[in-house]
């Protein structure tokens, strides 16, 4: 596509020729750039849409299965649109299988974990990232190693610990450990913090800010992306925890979602459609929270670029 109008050869003054050549080249590069950008945008969309379809296929199956009867469930080839659609499955999930209680319990535990563990982990990570203290590296390595031991072998000694504290059959074994942070979150925060420029820290300290103040006023505002991500992960981890609530809680009133999902099958039969409906219900809360939360990852901004 050529530039409308001008042709480069009209002037006769020697210097202008080169200037106008540069101009046209610039325009051509711009247009090529735009074309390239549009092409890459289209390509990106194609890739994303194809991949999204691949990811969504099992969910489409899940959703359609949740509205079937058991016979339709087993029909082959797969009936994608069930007819009639058994919305009653969802009602059963709440009425017979008591899912409302489970969702409430899980929500409480997950929100608590997200807030408490997130805050404490960010504090601990601040210590690892910004302070030099003796034993820092060995301690950090120790922390990493705690994540490397298979958790199964720790369950029984941990149970005995809680039993000796008298915490069995209470929420305490699930709530209290959150106060001490989580190694995973600490590690993630630390990596992120270490990537933040020190100049802002120093500026704030010069202004008389305490260490905690620097954490609150300087580090955290720059860390919104990682804060969101850690919150999502912590919430999700607590939401899907099937072990703690099983072992440490013992009544139906305190039961959580992952345990509740198993009650759809027993030795004689599995009511798959209802189970799929419950799975969808269990999915909704995290999806909503994540959909809202992930918008804020973008708005994290590095304050006052130091130029």
């Amino acid at each position: 596509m050529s530039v409308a109008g001008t042709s480069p050869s009209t002037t006769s003054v020697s210097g202008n020729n080169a200037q106008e050549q540069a101009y046209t080249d610039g325009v051509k590069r711009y247009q090529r750039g735009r074309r390239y950008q549009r092409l890459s945008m289209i390509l990106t969309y194609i890739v994303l849409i194809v991949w999204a379809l691949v990811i969504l296929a099992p969910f489409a199956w899940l959703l359609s299965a949740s509205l079937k009867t058991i016979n339709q469930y087993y029909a082959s080839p797969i009936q994608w649109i069930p007819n009639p659609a058994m919305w009653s499955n969802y009602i059963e999930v709440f009425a017979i299988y008591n899912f409302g209680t489970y969702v409430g319990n899980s929500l409480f535990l997950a929100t608590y974990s997200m807030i408490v563990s997130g805050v404490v982990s960010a504090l601990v990570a601040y210590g690892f990232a910004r302070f030099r203290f003796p034993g820092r590296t060995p301690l950090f390595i120790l922390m990493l190693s705690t994540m490397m031991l298979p958790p199964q072998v720790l369950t029984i000694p941990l149970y005995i610990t809680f039993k000796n504290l008298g915490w069995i059959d209470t929420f305490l074994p699930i709530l209290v450990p959150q106060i001490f942070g989580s190694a995973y979150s600490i590690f993630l925060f630390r990596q992120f913090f270490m990537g933040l420029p020190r100049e802002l820290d120093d500026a704030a300290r010069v202004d008389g800010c305490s260490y905690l103040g620097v954490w609150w006023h300087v580090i955290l505002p720059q860390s919104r992306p990682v804060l969101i991500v850690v919150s999502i992960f912590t919430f999700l981890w607590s939401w899907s925890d099937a072990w703690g609530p099983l072992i440490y809680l013992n009544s139906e009133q305190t039961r959580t979602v992952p345990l509740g999902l198993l009650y759809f099958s027993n030795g004689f039969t599995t009511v798959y459609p209802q189970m799929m409906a419950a799975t969808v219900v269990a999915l909704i809360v995290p999806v909503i929270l994540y959909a809202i939360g992930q918008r804020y990852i973008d708005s994290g901004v590095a304050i006052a670029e130091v130029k």
Partner: protein
Amino acid sequence: MVTSMNRRRFLKQAGNVALASSVGGAVLSACGGPSTGQSAGGTSSSSPVTITYGWWSNGPFKDNAMKDWVKSFSDKHPNIQVKPEILTWSDYWNKLQTTVAGGNAWDIVGMAGFMAAQYFDQGALLDLSTFSDLSGASKNLLPLSVKMCNWKGKQMALPVGLYVPLLGYNKALLKKAGVPFPDPVTPMEFADFKAAAAKLSIKTGGQYTQYAININDLDPLWTDLILMEGGQVYDSAINPKTITTNTLEGIKGLTEWQSLYSENLAVPIGQQANGPFGAGDIDSLLSGKVGFSRLVLADFIQVQEQNLMEQIGVTPLFSINGKQVTVSNANSFGVFTGSKHPQEAWEFIKWATSEGQQVFGQISDLPADNTAANGMLANTKPTEFVKTLLAAEKGFTPSVMTPNVQFSTDLSNILTDLANGKLTPEKAAEQMQTKGQADISAAA
């Protein structure tokens, strides 16, 4: 699990059972170990006692019925409150072993036959013979089932329900194939069954869309067949010392078992648990894809309520030369060794295995108590089905109980290969005996 440095021993009323507990974490643990260890001595105490009860889930309706049943015990014994906890199958065993190892399991422990061996073997349950009224409590129970809860001379539990699988069939499919309905009380001969089954496996467009029988839940059918041929597999099903499959009868039985797969009469192994042929008991029979499938007492309620007798019939498991064997299991109640209220737990068990049996039979399995079992004829519907159940009970034989887990794994692999035609029955019989024997001996 007994752990590290500190241990304390507590002597319990029932004898020298070590309740091991340990000092908890350095910073936060208050004092070391619990100071209790004594149970209320003698007969039921005067102050109200709460004991815990564990069982696995059979679906929300039955779970609620069971909870009501458990709590009804307190009507007869107002000083003892029972707190039930009902978990799903895998969760139940996970929690049980964690709490057993942690010293904190339910007072009344529900035991399933084929999971019990390890718990019996490692002393997780009290020896009930330390209670003086054991023989009185157990005299009305099916003797074979009481034996199944006896491990190395110790009575580890009392049976409360018998699991007796029946053969349910889809009437419409049988009619369509021109197969006469099997007699509800007299078992079919295996040869006759196979003849009928040949008509029930149907191919459409190169693939099987209908199979005669799903034997997934009828395990261990191979043992049934060998026993019906007159052979003997274990010296004793309970804690066997020898396994003999490499015999004429053994090979015959395995050949017959394999033929179910090789002749495409049984749903192939890969499809047994997932996919359209792998639905549960009643769902299989209603799906129209399977001719015969397992049916148990627990399914009767659904049959009755949804009026399925027009569609489903039952017959006992087949016989060979008139000999019928149904290898099955007993569910039982035991008392946790570390229980703080063993006497109260024992009171519950006594009640559950006698007066409580009537109701239990409606919730769960065939009662082990003879009176209750016979009484069921009047109370349980559909009545025709109950007749079949009682007929099948006659062939009740205990399923194998061994604490060696590798044994089951090895056998499972061999059987899978046999079903897929990778092994001949002769080879399979030989391998089962060699590997099985090695595993059993290693357990000792």
